[in-house]
């Protein structure tokens, strides 16, 4: 059976991991390559690198990092952040990225999803959606969750799937950073609505939260950052616990 996936997410600025990482046995915790290798070793199923560099120089450094990761890490990885053209994607895939994640650029120019899936295949196009509830409605936000849009989560999810997205990475801004669990109700609705895999993001705080998002939220994968980076939830422990709860995982 296809397993549920556990995906650590690394924020990268100018080629270095940021937001703090506290890893045992890691000489340089800011080195994305060392972290990626460690995660692959302990059983992460995939990795996501989010480029938060604001400068062109930072973006170039990102490509060099992608090349290094592809050379040394033997599990799939996605790169997101600041991608807005077919050329951007071409460059990343050429350096060995397996998938790219687009967010604001897809909202501004939805046809980008069609262009990317036609040129590179749906399998490498992840559409990330940040949304929060405003007056009972899930409002999609852009620019890292800073600007509300006219779009509603479920309509937008349907549209991105129709345009050829291979996967949706849904971050609930209401849950993000709370460590109080994933937005399982919205996730379950998304999963029933579109026929592509859904990655849950935002709210991971305990092992139980992962169990819940796979069972109640019907998520296909779960992404988290700090609980992994600070060793609060070791991935082998998490996966063993999921297995004990009869959730299919790769051990």
């Amino acid at each position, binding site marked *: *059976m*296809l*397993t*549920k*996936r556990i995906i650590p997410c690394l924020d990268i600025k100018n080629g270095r991991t940021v937001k703090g990482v506290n890893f045992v046995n890691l000489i340089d915790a800011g080195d994305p390559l060392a972290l990626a290798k460690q995660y*692959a070793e302990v059983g992460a*199923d*995939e990795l996501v690198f989010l480029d938060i560099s604001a400068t062109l120089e930072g973006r170039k450094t990102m490509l060099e990092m992608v090349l290094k990761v*592809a*050379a*040394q890490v*033997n*599990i*799939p990885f996605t790169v997101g952040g600041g991608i807005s053209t077919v050329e951007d994607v071409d460059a990343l*895939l*050429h*350096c*060995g*990225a*397996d998938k790219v994640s687009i967010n604001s650029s897809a909202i501004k120019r939805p046809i980008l999803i069609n262009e990317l899936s*036609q*040129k*590179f*295949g*749906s*399998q*490498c196009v992840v559409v990330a959606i940040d949304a929060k509830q405003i007056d009972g409605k899930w409002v999609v936000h852009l620019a890292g969750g800073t600007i509300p849009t006219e779009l509603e989560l479920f309509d937008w999810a349907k549209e991105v799937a129709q345009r050829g997205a*291979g*996967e949706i990475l849904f971050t609930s801004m209401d849950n993000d950073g709370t460590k109080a669990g994933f937005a399982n109700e919205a996730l379950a609705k998304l999963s029933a609505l579109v*026929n*592509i*895999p859904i990655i849950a993001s935002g709210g991971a705080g305990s092992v139980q939260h992962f169990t819940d998002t796979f069972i109640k939220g019907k998520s*296909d*994968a779960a992404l988290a950052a700090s609980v992994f980076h600070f060793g609060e939830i070791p991935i082998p422990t998490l996966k063993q616990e999921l297995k004990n709860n009869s959730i299919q995982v*790769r051990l």
Partner: protein
Amino acid sequence: MKLVILNYGVGNIKSIQFAFDRLGVTAVLSSDAEEIKAADKIIFPGVGEASSAMKKLREAGLEDVITKLNQPVLGICLGMQLMCRKLEEGNTNGLGIFDLAVKRFSTSVKVPQMGWNTITNLKSKLFEDISDKEYMYLVHSYYVEENENTIATTDYELPYASAIQKDNFYGVQFHPEKSGKLGEKILLNFLNL
């Protein structure tokens, strides 16, 4: 050992090249018929859409070159599918090395299948020292039904052929280059065939 990765302008071949680098083998990217024919082992990669990949293969003049190869050839993902007779994606004819059809998963499951799934009923030297039910990484919307050439089975919607073999031609639906240490072992087994 002369290892060639077929280069016909499709997909992410860097990952495959890197995986062999990690095994200490330099893989040469080539679309040159003579260089391909002279290789000891050949990797036939592919990601993306089937009909445009097939078109590129034809444009590169590689159709006949591939079907006439006598040395071990490993098709990966779309590479495996293109070695089959008929592909539902883009309603395309493949190379016909395997007299098999490639069909789309139904909407009863999420498409693409994306992630780690087990391979079982392993029947080839390609899987030497790989135990039954190990996990491999897969990303695909189309599959090959179980058949007499099946050397590994995976279950998604139905049990299907996740690896096939006929004479010197091998195909794997999963991505050994992205499937951790066990995937690398399969690549090593291929080199040792």
